[in-house]
């Protein structure tokens, strides 16, 4: 079971007009595995991550979650129903949190479970309390997002994603927009998820964090995976010249 493919990306390619943003990318993530994607700005990390849940559909190639092809070609109505279904299993956390400002923390967390899983108000409240406890923000349940710090916002965003009980979590530079002193509280929540064996794909610029929590690291540049391997190899002994150059700039910061 543990080395069974969980998320599979096959021959993924994506172009915006003439610009090839992803070129023939293959990636297999096992259940419980934590994969970091690193690389220079514009290398296609976000695009790849957003292809996994069809936010930016691929031009060609396949994305699978277990035995379900996420990017199936279907007539519009069926396609919409299909993606709405599969997205429930894929949590996503954004650089800029994207909390719903018109809803309280509770409202943010319970919206999707109530609309999509038919939870009663009491069940949804219990769920919100559980998820908030996990990210250490129980006392903020009735606050509006505008009254939270960046780190707290991101933790709520993680709780919101977790409330759907996803099979995999995608993080797109979850700490890049945070003041340095707020980064650690978010990293802590992510480490906790790692201990619970959540399958995660993490786009990050934080090499230390990637090295300490991830099982595998992918280095991307110009739309291709240049090199991948365990963090010990990628960070300490990369084979590729481009990887070495990139790390030299980023580790010496």
């Amino acid at each position: 079971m543990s080395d069974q493919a969980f998320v599979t990306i096959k021959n993924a390619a994506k172009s915006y007009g003439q610009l090839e943003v992803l070129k023939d990318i293959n990636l297999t993530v096992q259940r419980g595995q934590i994969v970091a994607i690193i690389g220079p700005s514009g290398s296609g990390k976000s695009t790849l991550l957003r292809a996994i849940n069809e936010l930016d559909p691929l031009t060609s190639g396949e994305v699978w979650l277990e035995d379900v092809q996420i990017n199936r070609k279907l007539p519009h109505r069926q396609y919409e129903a299909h993606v709405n279904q599969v997205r429930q299993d894929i949590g996503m956390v954004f650089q800029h949190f994207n909390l719903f400002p018109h809803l309280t923390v509770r409202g943010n967390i319970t919206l999707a479970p109530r609309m999509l899983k038919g939870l009663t108000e009491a069940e949804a409240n219990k769920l919100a309390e559980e998820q908030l406890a996990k990210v250490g923000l129980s006392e903020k349940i009735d606050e509006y997002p505008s009254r939270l710090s960046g780190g707290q916002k991101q933790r709520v965003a993680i709780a919101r994603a977790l409330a759907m009980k996803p099979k995999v979590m995608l993080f797109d530079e979850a700490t890049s927009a945070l003041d340095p002193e707020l980064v650690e509280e978010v990293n802590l929540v992510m480490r906790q998820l790692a201990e619970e064996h959540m399958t995660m794909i993490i786009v990050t610029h934080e090499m230390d964090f990637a090295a300490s929590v991830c099982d595998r690291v992918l280095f991307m540049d110009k739309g291709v995976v240049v090199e991948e391997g365990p963090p010990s190899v990628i960070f300490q002994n990369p084979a590729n010249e481009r990887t070495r150059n990139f790390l030299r700039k980023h580790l010496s910061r």
Partner: protein
Amino acid sequence: MDTELILRVYPFFLEAAWVTIQLSVLTALLGLACGALGAAARLSRLAAFRFVGAVYVSIIRGTPALIQVFILYFGGPQIGIQLDSFAAGTIALGVNIGAYMTETIRGAILSVDKGQTEAARTLGLSRWKTMRKVVLPQAARLMIRPLGVNINALIKGTALVAPISVVELTYTAQRFIGSTYKPFEMFLLSGLLYMAIIYVVGQGVHWLDRRARIT
């Protein structure tokens, strides 16, 4: 200034103001309905709807409102649409302001951050649920002020039904000028009443906008 005359005629102006108010309220409601439909069409996934929405907006905004009132009231009977002047005026003005409201509502929806839609869709919410639960509640706050501007224009625009003899403020002023030869007093009186209506509505919009901001 002939204050005695003003005191004698003002009850007629109050009645006319009531007609202006009714006209404004009905026009605003029809306008909001047209605006909501127009915005939905302009933002539709289907090109045909987008086209219809765009044509509606450009025809209405590209021609004088007075012509639109005249076409419906005078031209309508020729193509089998027979309406009394109040109904024709309300419909023409409502459809007119609806085009402006279409753009207001569309603009408000488009100015909600794209990340909001992405976050909602990522959770598995459908397009429609995302619109209803995430985008529209935020857009609604953003559109209060600009819709207030539309409504302000609409109230003043109700004067355009005077030429088709709806007995509202402008028509009433003109009628009394015909018999009294006191245009200054008559227009002053109707102007003040317009101002009173606009002031009250403006305060209402302001109140709504402030309330919507408290979160």
